[in-house]
């Protein structure tokens, strides 16, 4: 190569010497070894596969973290080396050499073009390698979707209440028609589902209070003055734990949503926008309180109409 027409200065970088030990191929100006970039990408490939496999096999977080670190380190190493390859490490100044208009000059130009093509092909290989390794790395992260857990399916719309479920206290004792007197309340659960948080209800005995408004379509839901509302606040899902006996309201201690028990648990104050769902009640032949069915609307905060 004729660099007599150019002033070429090797940059003072530590690896500025053309070619590393063991390197092959043409060593033109700006040549840096590609093998560290290739090794980096291979490390990324192997570590990505290792990450996916150890996630699927439920390996410890140390393995997951190690593989993730190796994959990212590999890609980082490759990009760093490649960036140096693209940038070169020489400083060129002066006019570009014009080859002589003779056979020797043409040959020199041909050599120079060949070298450029080789550099470009090398880059082409590295590009493919980078896309492949990057793709495998991104794909290996798809397994993380598995950590989102089982799909909710219909569980947000249903609770543990079934037609005929008996109402029991937190101790599992069935609630009978004689348990409550007018103006008293208790917290009830479906029998066999004491740990079902979305099924807890406030069971209240209104008695024959003339202020109690039976909503249309709910005429048979409150036998003998018993009414039951979901205890899960429709605002943020807190237990609606405060009962004010004189005002006949349920108040949520989290944000003071207030529900009027005399009028279908409609919200009368606070942030809640929906009434507490009412559970249709019945009394069976043994005098136990039971549910006619599950709630007719979803309990808790309105997940379905959240923008």
């Amino acid at each position, binding site marked *: 190569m004729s660099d007599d027409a150019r002033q070429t200065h090797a940059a003072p970088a530590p690896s500025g010497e053309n070619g590393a030990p063991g390197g092959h191929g043409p060593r033109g100006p700006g040549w840096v070894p590609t093998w560290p970039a290739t090794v980096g990408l291979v490390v990324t490939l192997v570590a990505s596969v290792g990450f996916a496999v150890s996630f699927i096999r439920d390996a410890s977080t140390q393995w997951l973290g190690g593989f993730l670190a190796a994959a990212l380190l590999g890609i980082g190493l490759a990009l760093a080396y490649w960036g140096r390859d693209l940038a070169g490490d020489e400083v060129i100044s002066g006019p570009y050499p014009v080859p002589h208009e003779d056979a020797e000059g043409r040959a020199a130009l041909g050599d120079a073009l060949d070298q450029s093509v080789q550099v470009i092909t090398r880059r082409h290989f590295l590009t493919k390698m980078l896309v492949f390794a990057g793709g495998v790395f991104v794909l290996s992260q798809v397994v993380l979707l598995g950590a989102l857990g089982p799909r909710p399916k219909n569980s947000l719309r249903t609770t543990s209440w079934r037609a005929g479920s008996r109402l029991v206290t937190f101790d599992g004792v069935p609630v009978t028609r004689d348990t409550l007197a007018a103006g008293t309340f208790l917290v009830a659960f479906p029998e066999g589902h004491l740990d079902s948080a979305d099924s807890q209800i406030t069971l209240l005995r209104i008695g024959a209070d003339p202020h109690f408004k039976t909503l249309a379509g709910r005429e048979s839901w409150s036998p003998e003055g018993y009414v039951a509302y979901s205890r899960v606040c429709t605002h943020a899902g807190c237990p609606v734990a405060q009962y004010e006996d004189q005002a006949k309201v349920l108040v949520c201690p989290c944000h003071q949503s207030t529900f009027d028990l005399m009028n279908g648990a409609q919200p009368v*104050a606070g942030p809640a926008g929906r009434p507490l769902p009412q559970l249709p009640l019945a009394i069976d032949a043994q005098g136990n309180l039971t549910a006619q069915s599950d709630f007719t609307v979803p309990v808790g905060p309105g997940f379905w109409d959240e923008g």
Partner: protein
Amino acid sequence: MAPPGPGADIFAANCSGCHGAAGQGGVAVPSLPFPPPPLAPAGFASLVEPMVRQGGIQMPSFARQLTDAQIQQVAQYVAQQIADPAARTANTAYGGQIFRLYCAGCHSTTGRGGAMVRGRNAPDISQYPAAEALAAMILGRGNMPVFAGHALDVRQQTSVALYVDVLVQAPSPGGAGLGYLGPVPEGAVGAGALLILIFIAVWLAWKSRKAVP
């Protein structure tokens, strides 16, 4: 069970007038806003004694009429002879469970009370003897509904009272109690202290930066 002794006489002379000869509870009279409650859930002398000594919302203190020994005797008598035997099977941990389900919503988990809507509030229950909780559960108080006999049986009422007794005389692990309001104010004070320490650190660093020429 101890045979009727001096405790029975003290009870007959001082307590039966309001609570009934068998502790069955009394009727409301115009001078008393609440009727004297039955003593069925008073199954532990440790619940009865502070009530007799200090008095409650409506019940007067008997510390001047009775000696310490007499107060202990009548408390033993009520717990052993008057109370429902089921009350003596109560336990504190179970009471804590019930307290968190039914009471903590209004009175907060530490029993220090809490705000209700429209300017009302649930009172700090630690300012009364624990037995006052039994009276409130039996009779209801204002907006507080009656729990006894409906939501809670005798054993459950006594368990709650035993737990309230723990809250009233909260065992202190040391340090400032901050009114025993619970973890939120404690965390807020901790965060505030942290912020002040950060400011002090920045201030010190700022000063030393200026000192170096």
